[in-house]
């Protein structure tokens, strides 16, 4: 399966706060990716981390990967209202199987 399981299902924070969401997966991986979907919109690729990497940064995003625990986390620092979206993680790239994601609500 190329589906990750995101946790928590929902997260509500204030603007300026940090948001952390987690992903667990079942199989060995070559890479793990995070996507974002704003309500009713297309999915946007955020970041890819390879299995030999432990941490990766992109702007306000920080992703960690722990292959021994088969888990990853996505940290969004200094969140903004525009970060309000659902966030999904995936392993592999052949076919993405969507879970429910983490629904992040950032309030002004």
């Amino acid at each position, binding site marked *: 399966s190329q589906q990750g399981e995101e946790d928590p299902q929902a997260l509500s924070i204030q603007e300026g706060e940090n948001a952390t969401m987690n992903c667990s997966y079942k199989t060995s991986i*070559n*890479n793990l*990716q995070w996507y974002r*979907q704003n309500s*009713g*919109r*297309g*999915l*946007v*690729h955020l970041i*890819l981390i390879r299995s030999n990497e432990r941490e990766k940064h992109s702007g306000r995003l920080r992703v960690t990967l722990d292959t021994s625990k088969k888990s990853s986390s996505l940290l969004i620092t200094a969140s903004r209202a525009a970060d309000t979206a659902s966030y999904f993680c995936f392993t592999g*790239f*052949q*076919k*993405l*199987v*969507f*879970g*429910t994601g983490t629904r992040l609500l950032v309030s002004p």
Partner: protein
Amino acid sequence: EPEVTQTPSHQVTQMGQEVILRCVPISNHLYFYWYRQILGQKVEFLVSFYNNEISEKSEIFDDQFSVERPDGSNFTLKIRSTKLEDSAMYFCASRGTGTSGNTIYFGEGSWLTVV
């Protein structure tokens, strides 16, 4: 930055009518996908397409659905006889090969309303 484009952005159609949703994948990509999302539900995989043939399809992708790459740039999804339950957002996606082939890029979607 290259992007996947989809048309129309919104279409309303009568039940039983045929609908064609169009997609222009990123130009050097070779793998193409259709997904759909019924309002309030998860995004669901429909079909993947490579080398001018379907490589995988889901149970949703029954005989009412077909895909085609009629030329070098377009990738279409046809629904032959639409049903009310086909109302959904349909997303096209594409992927390249090699090191850039790890990421699937999505279009903004085509919202289909069947009345």
